[in-house]
């Protein structure tokens, strides 16, 4: 199943707001040319300029994951473009509304940027090529079948004539756009599938790249904000007079019921004033909640009568009751924050006639919906300009709280552009956190040490209950996303065949707001499942790889990924002195991933030397960027494993900066060797940005057990006085 319904709240909001606001209803003329004025489009995806440069118009976001480069490769491949002349731009969400979502979804999360748009962007490139070929045939008055296209050049071989794309683009743009053009066989790819470099690297290494935090407009003022540190609290009062006279301060204002902002000439002035501003909070009913009180609620759920079932076969409870041997363990996973390097921000300019926002966003349409809601203006008076992101990791997609805030502040100062930038402390205090989860794992063996039953009881927080409650309504209260990697079917399905199986979830939702954090629920589910598989194998006295292999017969792609990492790490062969190995695998976001780690533990210090990672995403659009996503995901995932927990005390987050919420440095970086093993075929493509993140932690923890004989079942490791070398 697809966990994200096609008609989700965001698209509903955009659609209905557009209609209510009169955009589509008033029949705004669809522009016949693209946003840059005279330059004609060839379909909606491709603009070829007279100088032969090619602009791919594309709406997914770029936050370092390389999606835009990959999508442009797919378009350029079918276009037979000269790659050196290809660049990209983002059509605005306003243009998308006017043109009936011609570019599809803007949402760049769930590792769906490429896997859910590859077909239509390739068709866009192919259609544009056909238009160019037709235009050349018309120009030369020859049959269209005699014209070929390659690397931006059209050729009529019989007459030895050539034209570059730019020469016929104008004429081509007037031709009808072919529907459902045939696509190339990926075997024939020359641009897609190749290790092209990311766009804009030079700007990134020279400081020229403008992130949201860097964006400027003439006459702009700077703002910063504090929301109630206790989630669910409100502003009771604040003493604006205390800071109103401070240098540069222009305005001190309440934002909604829950926030207070200072607007000043510079951001630093705004921050100094906000820090000095006396604010009294009505902390509400959650002011006494702590990590310990939350843990008690989750522990109760581990043995609760009622739970939502995510996966079931046979009768696990009976198998456990009649087991010759029973193994049981309880794991737990903490709250974690995204902490992208660039704190949340948005720049807004409001007048009663128009509201515009410039924002680093993972979902331009979600930002657009937030502008509509916060400004109260109709769609045809709103616009969002997407800026590249200084990291997203799931914080900047479904959640647009900072856009709401920026527009509300700008609305109080009509005509003046306002850049709202959060402090790091605000970013840590106002996250949409990786949810807390515990798992009670019970495995049953018969007298011959065959695994006859498994019960996984999850107890903890649902993301969708808070973010997409309509999914729970459809699911009779269940959150299917909780079961990522463990579900019966679909893109996150369970990979083992166990005769008696029960995986269920006691939903316990504390007041801390949860969110989609790179990988989402596979982070904890892979640790629960794959560490416990090692516990089971060891209880049965079997090799951990062999034990898994016996249960993977029905899941050949998982097995292939696992075998690939086992072979490359040297599983079964002697390891160097002091080195210990562990492995793990999973299916997530329709990709089949596995990891194997080599670690040593010396004097209480854990060193991860090497991780071999395999991924089968069906097709690999850019192997160099996949390499980087795999290695990068381990930095994000292992930082969480080692250091990261958002502790709750007095209803609020304790860790407010990187001094208490640490992140891995280059010294801790293991050597990562990735195996990209696309198996092809006509099935769904797998994601890249998230799936592999989940295999690092269990592989490392399984190796840690081999090194020490100690099984760690709660995280992060710093809580166990384990240092990271």
């Amino acid at each position: 199943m697809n966990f994200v319904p096609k008609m989700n709240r965001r698209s509903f909001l955009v659609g209905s707001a557009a209609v209510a606001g009169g955009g589509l209803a008033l029949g705004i003329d669809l522009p016949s040319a693209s946003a840059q004025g005279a330059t004609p489009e060839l379909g909606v995806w491709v603009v070829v300029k007279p100088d032969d440069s090619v602009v791919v118009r594309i709406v997914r976001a770029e936050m370092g994951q390389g999606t835009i480069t990959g999508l442009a490769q797919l378009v350029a491949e079918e276009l037979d473009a000269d790659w050196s002349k290809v660049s990209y731009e983002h059509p605005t969400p306003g243009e998308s509304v006017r043109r009936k979502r011609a570019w599809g979804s803007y949402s760049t999360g769930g590792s769906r940027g490429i896997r859910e748009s590859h077909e239509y962007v390739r068709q866009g490139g192919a259609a544009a090529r056909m238009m160019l070929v037709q235009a050349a045939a018309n120009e030369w008055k020859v049959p269209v079948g005699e014209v070929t296209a390659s690397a931006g050049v059209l050729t009529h071989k019989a007459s030895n004539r050539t034209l570059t794309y730019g020469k016929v683009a104008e004429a081509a743009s007037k031709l009808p756009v072919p529907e459902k053009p045939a696509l190339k066989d990926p075997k024939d790819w020359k641009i897609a599938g190749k290790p092209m470099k990311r766009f804009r690297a030079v700007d990134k290494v020279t400081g020229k790249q403008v992130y949201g935090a860097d964006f400027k407009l003439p006459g702009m003022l700077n703002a910063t904000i504090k929301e109630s540190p206790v989630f669910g609290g409100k502003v009771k009062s604040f003493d604006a007079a205390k800071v109103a006279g401070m240098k540069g301060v222009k305005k001190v204002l309440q934002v909604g019921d829950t926030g207070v902002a200072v607007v000043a000439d510079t951001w630093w002035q705004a921050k100094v004033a906000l820090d000095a501003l006396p604010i009294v909070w009505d902390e509400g009913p959650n002011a006494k909640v702590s990590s310990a009180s939350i843990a008690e609620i989750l522990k109760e759920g581990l043995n609760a009568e009622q739970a939502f079932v995510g996966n079931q076969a046979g009768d696990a409870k009976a198998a456990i009751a009649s087991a010759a041997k029973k193994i049981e363990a309880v794991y737990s996973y903490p709250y974690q924050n995204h902490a992208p390097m660039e704190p949340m921000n948005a720049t807004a300019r409001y007048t009663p006639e128009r509201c515009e926002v410039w924002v680093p966003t993972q979902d331009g349409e979600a930002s657009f919906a937030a502008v509509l809601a916060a400004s109260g203006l109709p769609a045809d008076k709103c616009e969002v300009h997407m800026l590249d992101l200084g990291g997203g990791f799931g914080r900047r997609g479904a959640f647009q709280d900072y856009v709401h805030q920026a527009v509300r502040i700008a609305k109080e100062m009509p005509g003046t552009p306002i850049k709202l930038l959060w402090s790091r402390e605000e970013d840590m205090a106002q996250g949409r956190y990786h949810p807390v989860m515990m798992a009670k794992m019970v495995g049953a063996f018969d007298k011959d040490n065959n695994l006859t039953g498994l019960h996984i009881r999850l107890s903890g927080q649902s993301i969708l209950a808070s973010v997409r409650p309509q999914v729970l309504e459809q699911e009779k209260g269940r959150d299917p996303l909780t079961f990522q990697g463990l579900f019966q079917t679909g893109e996150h399905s369970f990979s083992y065949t166990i005769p008696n199986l029960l995986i269920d979830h006691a939903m316990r939702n504390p007041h801390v707001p949860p969110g989609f954090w790179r990988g989402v629920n596979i982070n904890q589910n892979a640790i629960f499942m794959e560490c416990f598989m090692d516990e089971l194998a060891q209880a049965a006295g079997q090799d951990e790889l062999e034990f898994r292999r016996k249960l993977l017969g029905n899941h050949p792609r998982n097995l292939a990924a696992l075998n690939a990492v086992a072979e490359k790490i040297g599983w079964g062969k002697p390891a160097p002195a002091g080195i210990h190995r562990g492995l793990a695998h999973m299916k997530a976001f329709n990709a089949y991933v596995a990891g194997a780690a080599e670690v040593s533990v010396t004097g209480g210090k854990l060193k991860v030397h090497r991780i071999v990672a395999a991924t089968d995403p069906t097709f690999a659009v850019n192997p160099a960027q996949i390499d980087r996503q795999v290695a990068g995901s381990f930095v994000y995932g292992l930082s969480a494993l080692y250091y990261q927990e958002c502790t709750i005390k007095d209803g609020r987050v304790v860790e407010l900066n990187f001094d208490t919420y640490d992140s891995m440095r280059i010294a801790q970086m293991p050597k990562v060797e990735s195996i990209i093993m696309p198996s092809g075929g006509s099935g769904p493509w797998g994601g890249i940005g998230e799936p592999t993140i989940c295999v690092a932690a269990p592989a490392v923890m399984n190796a840690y057990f081999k090194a020490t004989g100690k099984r760690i079942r709660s995280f992060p490791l710093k809580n166990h006085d384990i240092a990271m070398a």
Partner: protein
Amino acid sequence: MVALTINGQSHDVDVDPTTPLLWVIREQVGLTGTKYGCGVAQCGACTVHVDGQAVRSCSMPVSDAAGKKITTIEGLAVGGKLTKVQEAWVAADVPQCGYCQCGMIMAVSALLAEKPKPTDKDIDETITNICRCGTFQQVREAIHAAANA
């Protein structure tokens, strides 16, 4: 008024002398390649050179930088010609989101000025910038490539 020399140019800025150098560079001088990440000298996104030393500018009062030679990321490529570190960064396609990379490059440039052929141990001890995207494997590769360029 505080007198600053940034990338060879003089700037007289009218700010509270306790203002961090980072914010003066970004807001009064208008150079935004130097990034705000944490404000507490943890992440290194704000790294600049002050008299040749890598400094986390978020935690240096601007008054301490007065009269000293300050270089930001914008001051590295003279006349548009990338330095060998920047060249190595582009060749290895290091940046992912890129937000931390200016600070990373400033830290590495200072390291190479002091130790032209750093060992992996030198790198581990000196380059302590945070990168949440996780570019470290390419960062290390690019440092060695720049050292050998």
